[in-house]
């Protein structure tokens, strides 16, 4: 039997709201994720944000913060701050530094430990994140392949964002500003769910344009984003025409 989704799905909820009353529902298993708690017969909200539901039975609260709370399975952008014999200490914008074992690379052995200097930007995956302990990272996927993980090129620039913006950049349908800019300009982008994204392009001006446009579009609604995008593309086009004339 499928559960009837709560009335508050996709709406803003605040701590204390009761989203479901279990006494009305028959034998069902629900999966509660971040921001929700079972209080006897009622499911209450613990974190302010939007309530989300995924069939058949998953509920969670999505909110946007400047700080990141590490959780297993996330793909994040980390910065190396120190090297130890066993691990690299990597900052992932969480409450504690994360450990990246020196052997967690594809084909990694004691003989070919990579040499990262302080300040290297990495795209890594969070393996485990228990509260109170330092999170553990890995540069391999489940099968032991490198996949896309590893060091990002030494060009480009890393911009900071909130966790909500990072999530919307990774969602499908894609973020309107990102999509619009992608059609006109050529650049590459790596987004970490911890509120960091890295942009690289041939010209520095493109990188700066894309990064600042995405950062500024966070506070705009969908309609405003489209208007902002149109204005931006017009100005790029006019600037492009001028430079080509010269």
């Amino acid at each position: 039997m499928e559960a009837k989704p709560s009335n508050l799905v996709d709406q803003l909820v605040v701590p204390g709201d009761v989203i479901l009353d279990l006494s009305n529902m028959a034998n069902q298993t629900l999966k509660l994720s971040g921001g929700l708690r079972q209080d006897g017969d009622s499911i209450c909200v613990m974190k302010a944000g939007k309530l989300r539901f995924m069939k058949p039975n998953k509920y969670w609260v999505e909110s946007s913060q400047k700080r990141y709370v590490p959780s297993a399975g996330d793909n994040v952008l980390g910065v190396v701050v120190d090297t130890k014999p066993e691990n690299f200490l990597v900052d992932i914008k969480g409450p504690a530094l994360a450990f990246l074992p020196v052997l967690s690379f594809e084909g990694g052995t004691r003989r070919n430990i990579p040499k990262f200097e302080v300040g290297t930007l990495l795209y890594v995956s969070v393996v485990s994140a228990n509260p109170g302990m330092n999170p553990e990272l890995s540069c391999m996927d489940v099968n032991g392949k490198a996949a896309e993980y590893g060091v990002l090129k030494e060009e480009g620039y890393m911009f900071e964002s909130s966790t909500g913006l990072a999530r919307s950049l990774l969602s499908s349908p894609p973020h309107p500003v990102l999509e619009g800019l992608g059609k006109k300009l050529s650049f590459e982008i790596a987004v970490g769910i911890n509120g960091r994204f890295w942009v690289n392009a041939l010209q520095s001006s493109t990188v700066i344009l894309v990064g600042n446009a995405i950062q500024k579009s966070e506070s705009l609604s969908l309609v405003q984003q489209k208007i902002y995008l149109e204005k931006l593309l017009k100005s790029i086009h006019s600037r492009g025409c001028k430079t080509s004339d010269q």
Partner: protein
Amino acid sequence: MEHRLANSLIMTVNEKKFIESALLSDIRVDGRRPFDYRNLTIRFGSEDGSAEVQLGQTQVIGFVTGQLSQPYRDRPNEGSFAIYTEFSPMADPSFEPGRPGETAIELGRIVDRGLRESRAVDTESLCVIAGKLVWSIRIDLHIIDNGGNLVDAANIAALAALSTFRRPECTLGGEDGQELIVHPPDEREPLSLILHHFPVAVTFGFIGKENTVVIDPTHYEEAVMGGSMTATLNTNGDVCAIQKAGGDAVSQTVIMQCLRIASVKAGDITSKIKDAVESYNTQRSLRKIKRHNPDQQGSSDVAKRHMERLTVGSDQSGIASQFNEHDKTNKRNSTLKGFSGGPASWDPYSKGVDGDALRTSLASRVAPVDKQKEESSQVNPETKSNPKSSETNSIALTHEVGLERKQSKSLKDAVKPKHKRRNKSNAS
């Protein structure tokens, strides 16, 4: 060790390289050109002498207070001012609460040197009784958010706060003419400080091996730059102070170029500060006019009559002379009676108010206040040699309480005679 690492700004290799390479094409990470300032907003608080400055992401609050104190022995007829900085830990993860660190002290020194060495604040006007009592001004600068270039923002906050600060007017009076009376703001309009000029600080950062110069660095650029220089200038073309503490060596031509750019920027910033201060002052005087209390019917009649007279232009000179007469009697009265000078004795429109009824109603309230004055004035000669501001404040407080009880105020209370014509043109 982890704690220490987490406190400092973590920069990636990419960021450093990118900032340098982007500067080669004359563009900065937030889209500015190398000699562009960020958006500057100056706001004022509800009290005189408090200003909040926002320069991009950087936010600084400046607060000016004044206190009566003894002067230094070698400068008996000059007041003093001191600058205190507080780097709030909420501004940056590397700021710790408690004693100010190196950057905090350096910032305080730069702002202090700009104001003191150039004699921007007129300290001689702060003297009340030579050798005994002077005003000591305290400027507090609180850093609320560190987005880079704290020095410039803090300097602007200090200048804006100093421009709007008002200190109470002091006169010598009392029975023997030696007693100091600090007039509360209700009775006498407080005076502003005399600022001869505005020393504006402009900070430059030197980034990369080619020593590319950027103005108003953000905190990312500050982490990457090899050296920085702060030049404090005013619009008259004087260089008030230069600060270059360590960092990369810079050639002479670069320094001269920086100073030329700084003088242009100083002019922009000075005009922005002056505009903001002017709009604050007009708002303040508008607020004072509206302070008229409509409770007493007599005073509302007074207001009507006042408005009628405002519209009739020919009466202007008549009113001015009438007010001047009453002002002289007012001064005489205030010195004789101490603080009991209220609207009844110097309100020029007292014809419109039933003076006797007003006086009897006031007398019943003024009497207990007068008794307190007598006691305090007896205490005063004893403590005259060591006047503490707490004493004068308590006198001012008791008087303020007394004034609040008196409800009859007219529009004339708020307006000084010399500003009258300007305010009339505003009102009409």
